[in-house]
C-alpha cells in the first residue's frame, strides 16, 4: 500500500476489513450512492470521520484530472464504434440513422461513462461505467454526438446523423390484381405504403392518416365532400400504423404494416352514362399522413392527392403515392 497516512492527502483510500458497521451506517446516511468519484470521496470522508479504518491504496499522488494513462496532446486514446440494432440496411456500421432508431455503442478500451454531448435522444444504461450502451434517437433530425469518458479521464466521441421521414410512396401490393366491374368506368387496387429515405430504417416510426374530404368534378360531383376515412371526431385520424424492422428494403424503404384499400368508387350510370362516350369526371382527396416516434408529437408529411378520373372513352385511372392503375370499362370483371 502507499505510504500516505493523511486522509486529506491520499487520493485512493480504501476501507480496511472488517468494515466498521457503525461507520458504514453513518457513511450510508451521509452519502447513499457511490456512482462518481465525488460521491465515493464523500462516503469515505464520512466513514473515516466516524472512526472507520482505512489504508491508502494509491501508488503515487494522483487526482482524477491527472489520469494514469495521459491523453497525449489532447488526442483521444479510446475509440467508439457503433452497430445499428436494425439488420437492414445491411451496413450496420452506418452512422446515418432514422428517427427512433437504436444503435449499440462500444468503447475500446472500456469501460467509460457515457453522455450525449450534443443533440437529443436517450442512452441506456445512462449511469455507471459501461463498455457498451444503447442509443435511441428521438424524433429530432440532426447531428448527435455521444461521448465516452474513461476512468483515466480520456474521452472519445462518435457523431450520428439522425434523419426524419421525408416522404412516402405507394405501390400495388405484390401478388394482387385490380378491382373492376365489366362495363363500368371504375378501378381499385390494394396499396402498400413505403416511407423514405431508404438508407435508414424507420421501424420505431408509426404513421396515420388525417381524414380529408373529397373534391369532385363532372360525373363524380356526387362524391363531393365525402370523408375519406370517416374517422371518429373530434380528431378525425386513423389509428397508428406500425413499421416492421425486417420489412425494410434498399429499393423501397420502410414498409408500413397496412393494406390500403384504394378504389375510385362508381357514381352510377345516371351520372356517367351507361356506355361511351361516358361523362368525364375527376375527384381527389388531399391526403395528409402523419408520423411520430413512440408516443411523441405527430409530424405532417407533405399532402399528397389520391386521385380518380373517368375519361369519355371508358378508361378509369386511380392514382396515389406515385402509383397509377387503370382499367377500360370493357375489361372483364375482376377482384383483387
Amino acid at each position: 500500500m502507499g505510504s500516505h497516512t493523511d486522509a486529506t492527502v491520499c487520493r485512493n483510500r480504501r476501507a480496511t476489513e472488517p468494515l466498521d458497521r457503525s461507520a458504514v451506517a453513518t457513511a450510508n446516511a451521509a452519502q447513499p450512492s457511490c456512482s462518481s468519484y465525488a460521491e465515493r470521496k464523500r462516503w469515505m470522508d464520512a466513514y473515516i470521520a466516524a472512526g472507520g479504518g482505512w489504508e491508502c491504496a494509491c501508488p503515487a499522488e494522483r487526482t482524477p484530472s491527472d489520469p494514469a494513462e495521459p491523453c497525449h496532446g489532447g488526442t483521444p486514446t479510446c475509440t467508439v464504434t457503433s452497430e445499428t440494432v436494425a439488420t437492414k440496411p445491411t451496413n450496420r456500421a452506418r452512422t446515418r440513422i432514422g428517427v427512433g432508431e437504436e444503435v449499440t455503442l462500444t468503447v475500446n478500451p472500456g469501460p467509460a461513462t457515457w453522455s450525449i454531448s450534443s443533440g437529443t435522444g436517450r442512452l441506456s444504461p445512462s449511469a455507471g461505467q459501461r463498455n457498451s450502451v444503447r442509443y435511441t434517437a428521438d424524433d429530432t433530425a440532426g447531428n448527435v454526438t455521444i461521448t465516452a469518458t474513461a476512468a483515466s479521464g480520456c474521452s472519445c466521441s462518435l457523431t450520428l446523423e439522425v434523419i426524419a421521414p421525408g416522404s412516402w410512396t405507394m405501390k400495388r401490393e405484390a401478388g394482387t390484381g385490380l378491382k373492376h366491374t365489366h362495363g363500368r368506368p371504375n378501378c381499385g387496387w390494394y396499396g402498400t405504403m413505403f416511407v423514405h429515405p431508404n438508407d435508414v430504417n424507420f421501424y420505431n416510426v408509426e404513421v396515420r392518416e388525417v381524414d380529408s374530404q373529397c373534391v369532385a368534378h363532372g360525373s363524380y360531383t356526387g362524391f363531393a365532400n365525402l370523408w375519406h376515412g370517416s374517422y371518429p371526431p373530434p380528431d378525425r385520424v386513423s389509428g397508428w400504423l406500425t413499421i416492421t424492422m425486417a420489412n425494410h428494403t434498399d429499393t423501397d424503404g420502410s414498409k408500413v404494416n397496412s393494406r390500403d384499400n384504394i378504389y375510385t368508387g362508381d357514381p352510377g350510370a345516371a351520372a356517367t352514362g351507361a356506355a361511351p362516350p361516358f361523362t368525364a369526371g375527376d375527384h381527389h382527396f388531399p391526403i395528409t399522413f402523419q408520423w411520430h416516434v413512440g408516443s411523441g408529437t405527430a409530424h405532417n408529411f407533405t399532402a399528397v392527392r389520391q386521385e380518380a378520373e373517368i375519361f369519355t372513352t371508358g378508361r378509369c385511372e386511380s392514382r396515389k403515392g406515385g402509383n397509377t392503375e387503370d382499367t377500360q370499362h370493357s375489361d372483364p370483371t375482376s377482384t383483387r
Partner: protein
Amino acid sequence: MSDNQVLLQTARDAETAFAARRDPDQLTRAVEALENVQWREPLHLPERGRLRRETLDAWLHLVRLVDDALDPDFDPGRLPELAVQPPPTRDGIVYPPGADPALIEDPDSRDRYARELADNRAYAEHYRLQSRLRPLEERVVDACSAFIKDSYRGNPADEREAKAAIQAVIKSPRRRAALLSLLASPSSTAP
C-alpha cells in the same frame, strides 16, 4: 429514497401503466429504468442482497407482463386495412372505401358496414400492439437474461434464490425453462 429505489419504482409504475393502457412505450421505460439499477453499489451487504432481489423480481414481472400480452396466434402477414369498402346503394352507386355508413340506405347493409368499420379499427389496434411487442419481447428477455447471468450465475446459493424467483413469477413453461437454463449449476436446485 435512493437512486436505485427510484429506478425500481419507475419500473414498477411503468409496468402498472402498461398493464392498464397497453402502451408499449411503458415497457421501454421499465427496461431503461432497470438497466440503470446498480445493485452492487451499496456497501452494506444485506442491503445489496435486497436490492438485487428486488431488481430480479422487477425484471421477471416485466417478462411475465410481456408474455401475458403476446397473442400466440398473431399473424403478422394478415395486415389491417386502412379503409373498408362500403356496399352499393339502391341506385347502383358505389362509394369509395371509408365513406360514412349513413350514406347507405338499406339498414342491414348499413349496419353490416358499420360493424366492419369497427372490427377493422379494433383489429388495427390489436395488430399495432402485437407488432410493437415482438421486438420489445426480445429486448426485455435479453436484458433480463443478462441480469440473471451477471448477478446470479456461479454461486449455488445465489442460483437457488434466482431459480425460486423464476419459478414463482414466470408462468409460461417455455419461458421458465429458458430462464432456468441460464443457471446451470447442478447444486443449485431450488427447494
